[in-house]
């Protein structure tokens, strides 16, 4: 079949765009680019650029030289695990669907990236949409599906636009559609826009949403690989997972296994955010230590603050602390440490961040995003949130801490879907690693990070004020006065305790009482 066409496009494109061959400039030497290899190099709206970077050679190869079983075996051998957070072996998942004799099957790309502070998938979708399409087509071929859906959140309009362009261009070259590359394989892809519900990243809710129903989760089993979209076997893979597929076909499973660890081969894209100098997307081999990510690649927290914790796995994950910096970042280690890989968001916290407040932030998110179907998640998350609110307001008791833990475990144990099962994780994790901080809130009625507004009576400027005037400039009610290079004073009657001064002071001259 028509490999020549691809070769020809590749050669012509490189001829006119020799810069495409230049290697990617990594943020740090420890980065390895597999998924992001084309990002910021190719023009995502030009299919020829993708082809010039060996794009669509994999599906061509699969259709020419590989049986469905070969493809599944290769992916299984590579050890690729789902990048959406669960880490389920992709090859095994495909095999479930392949073995199902139903003649209608579906591939769904889960592009409903919803964790706060996570934007890994967005980059791939916007900067290298064809890599996702190619992964889907290969998956479709492997399991025997003819239709794929990309469920992309509507908040990513550029991604949706570029995906649609990519689909149209691929159709034109017969890389999608009927008899792809003159084989007897047909595959089409449609885009479905999400409507802003985080829970629709959960696969059964996502399926319900595509079916035109309300985005609510369903009990599993049956798993979608057996009974999914419209009751048919359905494989749902995350964007990053799919973006790995073509690379594995091209370079082989051994190549893929050369990155990462035995049980978590390959690379992982992370979005570094929060109190860290180098924010942004990084792609690193699995097994890199947390310290290497935070300190080497991210260059630490800066601002004379000290590193306190890093949150992984978004609202479903937990926190890792100083003592975990030597731990390897891979699926199993993170779970063992009480957090999870999640889709790749990493939010770094420093000593000004209160862990009760952080837990509250995430619970607030889960309360908002609970679909409302099952009792523990619907009722439990809001009661957890209210308990945290009580604690951060200084109204909590030791008994509330017990209640918090008991209820967290109950919600975790009895909820219907992943959202509820993991929503209490930020609480359980912070309770485990920062119990003293909770105790300070309920026993001493103090927020050690000076973060919980309910526990702050006043802000006071100490004698070590250098008179830099930053606090006075930031104060929204102009209640701070003082000469430049002179000691500043807060008018306590006018102060609204917003904490802006405290946050802005670079000399630790402001304290709370």
């Amino acid at each position, binding site marked *: 079949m028509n490999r020549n066409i691809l070769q020809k496009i590749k050669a012509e494109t490189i001829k006119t765009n020799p810069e495409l061959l230049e290697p990617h400039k990594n943020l740090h030497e420890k980065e390895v680019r597999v998924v992001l290899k084309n990002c910021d190099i190719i023009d995502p709206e030009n299919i020829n650029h993708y082809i010039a970077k060996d794009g669509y050679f994999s599906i061509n190869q699969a259709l020419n030289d590989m049986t469905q079983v070969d493809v599944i075996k290769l992916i299984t051998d590579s050890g690729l695990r789902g990048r959406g957070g669960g880490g389920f072996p992709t090859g095994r998942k495909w095999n479930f669907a392949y073995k199902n004799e139903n003649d209608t099957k579906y591939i769904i790309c889960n592009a409903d990236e919803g964790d706060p502070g996570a934007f890994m998938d967005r980059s791939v979708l916007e900067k290298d949409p064809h890599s996702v399409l190619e992964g889907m087509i290969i998956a479709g071929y492997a399991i025997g599906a003819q239709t794929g859906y990309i469920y992309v959140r509507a908040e990513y309009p550029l991604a949706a636009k570029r995906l649609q362009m990519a689909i149209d261009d691929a159709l034109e070259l017969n890389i999608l559609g009927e008899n792809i590359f003159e084989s007897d394989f047909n595959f089409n892809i449609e885009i479905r826009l999400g409507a802003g*519900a985080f*829970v629709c990243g959960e696969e059964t809710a996502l399926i319900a949403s595509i079916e035109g129903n*309300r985005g*609510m989760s*369903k*009990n599993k*089993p*049956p798993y979608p690989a057996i009974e999914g979209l419209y009751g048919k076997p359905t494989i749902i893979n995350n964007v990053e997972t799919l973006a790995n597929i073509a690379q594995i076909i091209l370079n082989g499973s051994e190549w893929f296994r050369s990155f990462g660890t035995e049980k978590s081969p390959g690379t992982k894209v992370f979005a570094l955010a929060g109190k860290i100098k180098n924010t942004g997307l990084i792609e690193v081999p699995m097994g890199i230590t947390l310290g290497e990510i935070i300190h080497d690649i991210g260059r630490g927290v800066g601002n004379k603050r000290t590193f306190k914790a890093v949150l992984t796995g978004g609202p479903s994950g937990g926190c890792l602390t100083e003592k975990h910096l030597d731990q390897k970042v891979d699926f199993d280690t993170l779970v063992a440490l009480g957090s999870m890989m999640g889709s790749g968001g990493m939010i770094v916290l420093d000593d000004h961040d209160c862990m009760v407040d952080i837990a509250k932030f995430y619970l607030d998110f889960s*309360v*908002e*995003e*609970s*679909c*409302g*179907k*099952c*009792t*523990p998640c*619907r*009722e*439990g*998350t*809001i*009661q957890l*949130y*209210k*308990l945290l609110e*009580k604690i951060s307001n200084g109204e909590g008791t030791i008994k509330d801490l017990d209640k918090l833990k008991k*209820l967290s475990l*109950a919600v*975790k*144990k*009895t*909820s*219907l879907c992943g959202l509820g*099962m993991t929503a209490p994780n930020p609480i359980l994790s912070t309770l485990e690693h920062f119990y003293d901080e909770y105790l300070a809130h309920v026993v001493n009625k103090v927020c050690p990070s000076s973060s919980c507004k309910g526990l702050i009576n006043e802000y006071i400027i100490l004698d070590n004020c250098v008179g830099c005037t930053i606090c006075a400039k930031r104060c929204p009610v102009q209640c701070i006065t003082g000469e430049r290079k002179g000691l500043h004073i807060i008018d306590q009657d006018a102060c609204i305790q917003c904490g802006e001064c405290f946050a802005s002071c670079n000399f630790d001259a402001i304290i709370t009482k």
Partner: protein
Amino acid sequence: MKMINLKINDQEIKVPEGKNILDYCIDLGIDIPTLCHDERIKSEGACRMCVVEVKGINRLLASCATPATDGMEIKTHSPEVMEARKDVLELTWASHPNDCVVCEANGNCKLQDYSYEYKLDSIPEYDGHKRNFSIDNSNKFFYIDPEKCILCGKCVSVCKDLQGVEALGFNKRGHDTFVSFAFDNGMEQSNCVSCGNCVSVCPTGALMEKSNIIFRSWETKKTRTTCPYCGVGCQFDIVTKGEQVVRIDPAPGIPNDGLLCVKGKFAYKFINHKGRLTSPLIKENGVFREASWDEAYELIANKYTELRSKYGAPAFAGLASAKCTNEENYMFQKLFRAAIGTNNVDHCARLCHASTVAGLATTLGSGAMTNSIEETKNHDVIFVIGSNTTETHPVIGSFMKQAIAKGSKIIVADPREIELAENADVFLKILPGTNVPLLNAMMNVIYSENLHDVQYIAERTENFDKTLETILGTTPEIAAEICGIDAADIVKAARIYAAGNKAGIYYAMGITQHSQGTNNVKSIANLAMLCGNVGKESTGINPLRGQNNVQGACDMGGLPDVFPGYQKVFNDDARAKFEKAWGVKLDKTPGLSLPHVLDGAYENQIKFLYVMGENPVVSDPDTTHVKKSLENLDFLIVQDLFMTETAEMADVILPASSYAEKEGTFTNTERRVQMVRPAINPVGESKPDYIIIQELMNLFGYKQDILTPSEIMDEIASLAPIYGGVSYDRIQELGLQWPVADKSHPGTKFLHEDKFARGLGLFSPVEYAEAKELPDEDFPLILTTGRVLYHFHTITMTGKNDEINEIVPENFIEISTKTAKEYKLKHMDHASISSRRGTTKAVVHVTDKIGDGVMFMPFHFADGANMLTNTELDATCNIPELKVCAVQIDGKL
């Protein structure tokens, strides 16, 4: 099927796989609490009360929604499980009002029960957050109180998956989620049909019937009985407090599977209505006065003796009742045949399915639904012709929708775009009275395309060749012209019907109420037999009977030509059998059919008429003629619950007890004989009809022991072979579907399995004949009539419910936009409509669900549609042509 091993608590079992954990636990008698589970709908696992521990899984699983797999070790009541259930309850209480003391659901609330069972320490345990919703009062029959809602989702699922309506849904999400009509815009903006099935499944007080009656569940009593409205024969519990009916609860299982419609669920207020007749009434000088039973009986006896000696038995006639029990109808016809000596007994089946009884008896040998109601759910093709099923037989309509949701195709032929037409694969909007050409053309296509069942025709039928000629004469193009539809749609419909492996035809008055009614029915039989579609499960011909016991009233011989069990009065053997049993000589001449009884009265032939639970002044065609006929009688007895339009014309009125006050049986449309049980004592001095009739028999000089309903049924069983094995001890739980040959016969789920009741199925050539009255210059529109969801027949019962009267307060017509424009009428205008027989008024509903030049009017209202309808009869079965007549709109009022 694969067997799996399970260990549930300490029991090890080996069971066939395929069910969820909860199902196996129930089989073992293990009680697992559930708030959201309903075996009729797919388990959602929402409430999490049913969680269980499964070895090796570190979370708890919802037993209702999790398939059991081989080797599972399950603990249903471990400390961890008990704790989790308690947690779920505590969380539920966190946002539930703590007001059981004043809650209407107190004592009938699963949340309450489980909170007690699981020993909650304090309520609420969590006080972090309460919800603040207002009550949705937009439905007339029930309200939604979202604060009491625990979001189990049963109402939403029942509305969508069982009722097929999707009026209720979840709004917002997370903790703010609440159940409401679409977009929280209230009931009127939704497609809610007020069936109340949501109310029936609500485990708390969130969906509650609006009621003025104060009662606590522990003060009530439940009586399982059969619905008195349509022919579905839904089973339900009448809930009573003392002598007051306070609620109706649907019963699970056959035939209605826990569903009801708005009438069955909410239109029960006629029972305790202040308008009930509570003592006999005698008309003196044109005015009724209350009288004792003795007085009334004396008057009747005197009149009977006088008229009997003066005019003889042929001057007597009786109208039996499709609303009364089998036992009552049996005794009623026995009174006329044995005590008076005439076969002049008929009832309103003459107006609905006389053509079915005649047409199907001729072609198949039995004039009833061939299949069972539960089989409706399993069709792969449904052909609905002349039946607005979702309004007239709502529960069967819902079952059709369930079949469609499972993938069944549906073809609808009707002059109106009825609800089922909305999602039909083919909708044939035929002109009224053009069934025959449509059916012939469908057969034409099936035969021409070789889609017919050659072997079936050869082995099981006769007279096909002769019928073929008429079929070949009607091409789709010819029929399309007559019916006013596209020929391509006829072809499509024919192909779909012929392709069905489980094809069911459903029809009602749109087929029967024509001067060609019997031919229409025969045509349907032809079509079904052509495709081999009779005599199999979920495959057949299903005439939907309109009244609760119209099937039974026919079975009981409430017809002028047959004894009970359709044994002809002119058959000597049959007559000899009845003469022996009843101890009198019986007349061998068939009596007068209903229209002829009225004509007879008009022409002074009939002098004495006894009407039991019928209202011909409203229900029969040409009201003016009916009234004149009744006025012309020497003596009219009306036995009813209420002062109906017919009762007003009576000389004496006998107050009858309602279905809720007596024992007996109704036979539903699927031939199932079901129990009717008394929930309260007879209202006032009313008496059950079976007592009144037997007392009259003695009064008329026939010695009749006063039998109990059970004893009457034994007599029926001894005389009517199709009821041969029916007795009260056999029908307490499920009922029996006739034919039931003897005590050991299990009843018959579907008819004609190996051979037709008549032997070979008879093909009958049917040529199209136009309706007797067609539009002309003076009367340019075609009037067709029918029922609406909310009202029943002459609204004697439904009209006693204020909510229903608010929804459908008065007579109306439906006309198309174009027709309305021609007459310069707007939606909701009042108009005057006339035919050659009379004039009536109605509110105008402009809708393009009806075709141009056609008008629809419901027949419920007095001095309404039947002021206009035609008395032309089908020559074979004497059904009047109620579905077609020519009318004129006189103008706006």
